């Protein structure tokens, strides 16, 4: 999932420690939401939401509707600024490779979002639907449920989920460092081979 380069959201960023927007950025975001609020109800309906997300990200239609259903926690068919803000923070966390940190810092709201039926438990099936938002691989998710689903029912309560976020944040950091290192090595190798060709 990527933000479109040059879009308004692309210029925002989260604080790396607390994973929050600055006050100025929130003010700008509020103004942006106000512009998008065509019908003057301080909300975005599903059509406007779809076109907004389709314009600023590379998410597919099915993913966008999944996100809308997740955010429309009152099932009114519209989302307000609070949910919009949450969405933007998740998008930026993904963009800035802070998914693990974000889930750890905001474990309660993230848990409430993923707890789709409100029973205080997240099922593996539901979490899997939304793993694209948090950059979790399929196997990583399986391992998390296996290691932290202490009740053995393939469901996570909040405490288990909180522990997950701690471990996952570390795992993700290590994975990202490895990926960056590999990227750097690949670049160096290609530069070296180019130089060799020039010398010949």
């Amino acid at each position, binding site marked *: 999932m990527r933000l479109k380069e040059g879009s308004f959201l692309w210029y925002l*960023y989260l604080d790396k420690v607390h994973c929050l927007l*600055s006050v*100025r950025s929130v003010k700008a975001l509020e103004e*942006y939401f106000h512009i998008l609020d065509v*019908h003057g109800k301080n909300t975005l309906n599903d059509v406007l939401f779809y*076109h907004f997300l389709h*314009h600023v990200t590379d998410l597919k239609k099915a993913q966008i509707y999944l996100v809308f259903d997740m955010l429309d926690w009152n099932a009114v068919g519209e989302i307000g600024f609070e949910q919009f803000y949450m969405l933007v923070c998740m998008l930026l966390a993904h963009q800035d490779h802070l998914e693990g940190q974000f889930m750890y810092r905001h474990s309660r709201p993230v848990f409430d979002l993923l707890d789709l039926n409100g029973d205080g438990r997240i099922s593996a099936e539901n979490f899997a639907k939304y793993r694209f938002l948090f950059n979790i691989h399929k196997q990583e998710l399986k391992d998390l449920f296996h290691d932290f689903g202490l009740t053995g029912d393939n469901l996570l309560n909040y405490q288990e989920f909180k522990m997950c976020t701690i471990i996952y944040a570390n795992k993700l950091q290590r994975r990202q460092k490895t990926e960056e290192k590999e990227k750097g090595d690949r670049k160096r190798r290609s530069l070296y081979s180019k130089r060799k060709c020039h010398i010949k």
Partner: protein
Amino acid sequence: MPLSEVCEGFNAEGRSISKTRRWYSPGSRSLDEGDKASHKPEELDENALVELELHRGSSMEINLGEKDTASQIQAEKSSSMSSLNIAKHTPHQAYWAEQQSRLPLPLMELMENEALEIFTKALRSYQSGIGRDHFLTKELQRYIEGLKKRRSKRLYVN
């Protein structure tokens, strides 16, 4: 006295060149990098400088009140001239207070342009989904026209 000596962070036209005001620069990643560093000290420096200059102007007037009338008038003239010169170059405090709570124009332009692109596509969905005559479709259409008018006004002014 050149503006740059009076007010750090402003050019001759009274526009801020401070880091804290850089919201949008094409090609760069970060928005408002001033938030990364401490924001308040820079602001205080600007406000402190403005206050200093305004206070300097008024204290000059107070001190000169003790001289005789003719020289008083002359002195007042020269102090008011220097105050005028300072006032010409020093942005008014109220102006900066207002600027603090308003979004810079390039950012608004970016947001509105993006919104227009989103709404143009949304309008097609509205027309195909609920019909051209539905009040929501007409509302969206009017909104788009309003945004376009605002944009062309801005371009015309620039």
